[in-house]
């Protein structure tokens, strides 16, 4: 597969990718290791809580989005990392059986002032469920190399 460069993520672009059905077992497995609160561990305890039923840890949702971003973008991009993430919003619960996908939007793109061979892409990543509801939104910049001179776009 061809490497993706800065020029391949133009402003205004919206793409969707990934599909991942979340099971109760993996919600509980992640929570046991990283977020062992009752509403991530046990259906009965979760029903009695503010969550109203078993829900995935927000960090689990973030990790699942990262996996889909890796498979669709980061593993095939001339990525130079990210200086950080501006915001993550957990908007709706992720429940067992939910089918998740990602919608990525390029908000803006510019060439780095200090590194002219690198572009800065301001991206919005939304985690969607099977009802097309946005369950999580993540926003932040990506550093990605510009297409080298002489290399043609495919």
């Amino acid at each position, binding site marked *: 597969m061809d490497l993706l460069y800065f020029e391949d993520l133009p402003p205004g672009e919206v793409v969707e990718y990934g599909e991942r059905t979340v099971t109760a077992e993996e919600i509980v497995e992640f929570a046991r290791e*990283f*977020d062992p609160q009752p509403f991530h561990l046990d259906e009965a305890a979760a029903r009695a809580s*503010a969550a109203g039923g078993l829900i995935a840890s927000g960090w689990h949702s973030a990790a699942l989005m990262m*996996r889909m971003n890796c498979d669709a973008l980061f593993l095939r991009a001339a990525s130079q990392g990210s200086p950080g993430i*501006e*915001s993550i919003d957990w908007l709706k619960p992720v429940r067992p059986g939910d089918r998740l996908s990602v919608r990525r939007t390029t908000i803006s793109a510019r060439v780095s002032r200090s590194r002219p061979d690198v572009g800065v892409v301001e991206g919005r990543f939304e985690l969607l469920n099977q009802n097309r509801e946005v369950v999580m939104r993540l926003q932040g910049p990506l550093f990605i190399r510009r297409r080298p001179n002489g290399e043609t776009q495919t």
Partner: protein
Amino acid sequence: MIGMWYEDHEVGQTASLGAHRFTREAIVDFASKFDPQPFHLDEEAAAKSIFGGLCASGWHTVSVSMRLLVDGRRAQRQALAANGEKPPPLGLGRGVRDLRWPAPVRPGDVIAFSLRVESLRETRRPDWGLIGMRIAGVNQDGREVCAYTLMGLAARRLA
């Protein structure tokens, strides 16, 4: 130690969350599930990468900080219960602001996490307040490896 109810919090309060040692095995295990970029999986590929060696996924680092936060709260809830006091209902997280990973976490690194109460805000619901907590992780050399502001709901005592 900071209390568990919304009203127990004041801007500027700090608390230690404890420390965690990141093993190579755990770094690779997390990355193979959620962040399979070469510099999190393979020493040789990592040596040639921008990180110059194997390092933990940033998502692994923040997930571990959550575990330490939850463990501390659970101990507090148990202490309250042992005193015959009813612990507050658990609040859900709303989101994260300004998440940074300024330095890599390497196999064998011991990361000490801390929190600082950064903001307090009442919500439209009388039973929950919104707390902003700056959580930071520092390695054994005193270098910050991650920092973020966790926005979470806390139950109000005066509900």
